[in-house]
């Protein structure tokens, strides 16, 4: 998802008998759906896994501004431009909510920025694909934000208080993102034949990368099992992917667009769609740095950080000057 393949550092799931009294009390609280708050005792692996997960999620929001920011100056109307600006601003806000949640676990903002800018931290594979036409912006809102919502809605119930509260805020705002995307897609699908073709092309480009967002099957993964035990992951990747396909296919049909999967077909027995295998080789290439835009994304990110330095310096200098003046007046 926005956080993909998060490692927990454990090699097996402990039984309650193997746990220390503290670990057992902690797990009991999680089992009873009592939220864990920042200053309470927690297993070190829980803390570290959460830092990884929340910071990946935050980095994804920050990098996620780039593919869309690409179209702000070229949006087809002033209204679409204002909407896109608001959406990109929301993504920045979501990143900030999440960084703050991560910081309650004992990591600093500077460390998190350093991890992102040095290329050490991961972010979602989806943001390493280019936005070639305006229709890609529509497709991102509809599909990428749609997939994000699938994952974030259950995370509102996760065991860690600050993360859960950040998710509540984010989910409230995310629905606008998906709906404006579907709205823009509808305009194109009902437009000229060329516009409809643009919409279809964008669906063709974004469908499979959107399914990859959920990550490879984790039914057998010890990390996934541990995260679910800790309730920082609520559903398996396959469950969420299936749900996304079932929800999205009728939306594509409504627009008269074709989902680019020859194996896609309604399975009346299961009451769900059967669909083709995702190209996981492509996914592994993208998350290991070899997607179409990985280098460009990182370069742009570092450039923005460096070019914003004078603003931070000026704010610092102003705060120092004001502080000194206040002190002089008090003396």
């Amino acid at each position, binding site marked *: 998802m926005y956080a993909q393949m998060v490692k927990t550092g454990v090699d097996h799931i402990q039984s309650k008998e193997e746990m220390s009294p503290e670990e057992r009390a902690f797990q009991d609280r999680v089992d009873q759906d009592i939220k864990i*708050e920042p*200053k*309470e005792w927690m297993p070190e692996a829980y803390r570290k896994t959460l830092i990884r997960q929340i910071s990946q999620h935050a980095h994804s929001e920050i990098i996620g501004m780039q593919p869309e920011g690409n179209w702000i100056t070229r949006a087809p109307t002033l209204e679409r431009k204002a909407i896109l600006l*608001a959406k990109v*601003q*929301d993504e920045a*806000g979501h990143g*900030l*909510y999440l960084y*703050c949640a991560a*910081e309650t676990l004992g990591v*600093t*903002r*500077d*460390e998190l*920025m*350093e991890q992102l*800018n*040095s290329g050490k931290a991961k972010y979602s594979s989806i943001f390493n694909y280019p936005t070639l036409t305006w229709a890609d912006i529509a497709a991102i809102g509809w599909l990428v934000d749609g997939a994000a919502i699938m994952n974030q809605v259950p995370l509102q119930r996760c065991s860690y208080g600050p993360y859960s*509260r*950040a998710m509540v*805020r984010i989910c409230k*705002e995310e629905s606008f993102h998906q709906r404006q995307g579907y709205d823009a897609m509808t305009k194109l699908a009902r437009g000229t034949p060329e516009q409809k073709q643009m919409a279809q092309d964008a669906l063709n480009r974004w469908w499979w990368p959107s399914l990859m967002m959920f990550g490879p099957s984790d039914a057998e993964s010890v990390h996934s099992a541990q995260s679910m035990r800790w309730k920082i992951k609520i559903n398996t990747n396959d469950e969420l992917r299936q749900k996304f396909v079932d929800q999205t296919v009728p939306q594509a049909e409504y627009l008269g667009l074709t989902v680019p999967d020859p194996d896609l077909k309604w399975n009346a027995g299961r009451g769900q769609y059967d669909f083709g295998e995702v190209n996981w080789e492509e996914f592994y290439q993208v998350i290991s740095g070899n997607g179409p835009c990985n280098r460009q994304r990182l370069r742009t990110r570092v450039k923005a*950080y460096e070019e914003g*330095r004078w603003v*931070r310096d000026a*704010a*610092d200098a*102003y*705060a120092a000057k*004001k*502080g000194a003046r206040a002190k002089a007046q008090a003396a």
Partner: protein
Amino acid sequence: MADKKEWPLWEVFIRSQHGLAHRHVGSLHAPDAEMAILNARDVYTRRNEGVSIWVVRASDISASSPSEKGPMFDPANSKVYRHPTFYEIPEELGHM
């Protein structure tokens, strides 16, 4: 790459339009209170969430300790007579 010193953390409180008290909504980093309020406007009130913002340096907040939750809050458990429902009022009196 890291800046020399990290900006302090501010806790943000927002009062919504409906006359309720300021409520904690989250936190952010800023060099001073003035910038913290400006940033809080952009981060926490993009959709008319409030009509007033308070910011407090996180380091200025003192908190009760989670490990003392028992001794702090348990005493209230046994004082059921503090709730109106503890008292039975004859039905013929109507609402009280």
